[in-house]
């Protein structure tokens, strides 16, 4: 597996990463996933101000090769969404770690303990694809 996952981020097993900034986290998608589904053409962003639970759908997307939704790695209040992605979904392909999808104010910080670090996530990914 050539793809590396950035250290310093946390990951779930549904192609999403989490960057912790105190009580507020940024959530986005991983590069291996973006590369596998090719160019994103449409994104249905989450609603700002809405409460979201871990495991619930937070984003629906359509790409050239894929159509579906992703599950939230955390629970909390969506305080900000990246509206630029609606106009240019392919930004996610260009730099998925720079272009977060939503910012969430955490309900329970302990939830982060259930997420994987880069090495664990990579091993998880390799196992699934290998």
């Amino acid at each position, binding site marked *: 597996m050539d793809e590396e996952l950035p250290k310093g981020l946390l990951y779930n097993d549904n192609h999403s990463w989490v960057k912790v900034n105190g009580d507020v986290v940024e959530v986005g998608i991983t590069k291996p996933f973006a590369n596998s589904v*090719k*160019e994103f*053409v*449409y994104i*249905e962003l989450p609603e700002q101000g809405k409460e979201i639970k871990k495991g619930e759908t937070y984003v*629906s997307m*359509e790409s*050239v*090769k894929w*159509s*579906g939704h992703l599950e939230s790695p955390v629970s909390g209040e969506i305080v900000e969404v990246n509206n630029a992605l*609606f*106009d240019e*979904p*392919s930004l996610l392909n260009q730099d998925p770690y720079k272009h977060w999808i939503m910012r969430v104010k955490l309900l329970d910080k302990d939830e982060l303990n259930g997420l994987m670090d880069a090495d664990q996530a990579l091993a998880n990914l390799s196992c699934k694809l290998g």
Partner: protein
Amino acid sequence: MSMVSKGLTLSIMVLLLAAVLTPITFALDQEQPEVVLRLFWGKGCPHCAKEKEFLKHLEESDKYPGLRIIEHEVYHNESNQELFKLLADAYGKRVEGVPTTFIGDSVIVGYGDYMNTGKKIESKIEECIHQGGCKDPLERIQQGETPQTNQSSNNGGVVTLPIIGTLDTTKVSLPAFTIIIAALDSFNPCAFFVLLFLLSMLIHARSRGRMLIIGGTYVFFSGLIYFVFMAAWLNIFILAGNLKIITLLAGAIAVFIALINIKEFFFFKKGISLTIPESAKPKLFKRMREMLKASSLASMLVATVVLAVSANVYELLCTAGFPMVFTRILTLHQLSKLGYYLYLVLYNVIYVIPLFIIVLLFTLTLGAKKLTKEQGEALKLVSGLMMLGLGALLLLKPEALNNVFVAIILLGSAVLVSALLILAKRIISRKVKKNG
């Protein structure tokens, strides 16, 4: 696949252009075999007058250049009366009344109207042409031939149904068939694909008015393009005539398309797929987003029309089956030019109704909905099974499609088999997941 789909799209566009530019009044230039029809009529008989007018119109239209009509007045002409009896005896018929028409092996007694008897006479003429011509009935008898009589009356396929009562199936079959096929065609994942995304993007703008106008415009032009596409097929089939080979070809293509659609249910997007090409998706979505950024409603409408044209050209790849099958079956009925086009209008009105309903629902609820992969697969399965049935009938017994009940049974069977397959697939998936 990208090169293949580009090639297909280009071929369809060339086909469209060529066939739509071909005038429908173009008369078949090829030599037609001779078909002789003898009509026995009476002066003062109103039904006779109607048939004579119909036959005169047929001669003047030059639709059948090989047709020769010989008329005999029997009320005031004894030798014609004897001739009438001679022919009637040879055809195994009693002399019942006038008008009586002898053509090929058929005797048609009476004349009601064009939709009943006129159509029947035309179909007999067509039958004769396919057989290489029909000799003069009198000549045949004089040469010692015995006609294989096929008694026809001027009543259509009248049936008696419970509750409904008497029903003339020749009058309802084609309209009902049109509605059934168009309705099924309208539930097409390809037709929904762009519209659903367009409306989802419009929800972002949170304007019901705009959603209604843009969505309505898109649906209207989608229907118009579909109509033009079907008109192209209509022109092609009319030019080709009622040659059996054309019907067989249409049936074979329908079966092929049907099998691809059915395959999608089991092996989604593996191998040949009749879907909007992947390479087209980024361009389509880019057009949608640019349309939303338009500065005025007018420019947004123009952009919507452009989007409708480009999206529907791509969608033609996966919606080709039903329009082709329907227009072929339509041309097997003897209708006027206006009649053919009116049926196409009916088809397309039914086709766009579900799309308009989607626009209304989105507008009222301002809620985004997407067609899931499973729903798309199910729709492809139902339409694939229905198309398989239609294609098979075109190959084996096209005349069965004149009966609306055949279409109803086909549809019912397609839905039932689909439901069973979907259920089986779900059960198997659950078991596979459970066993890990």
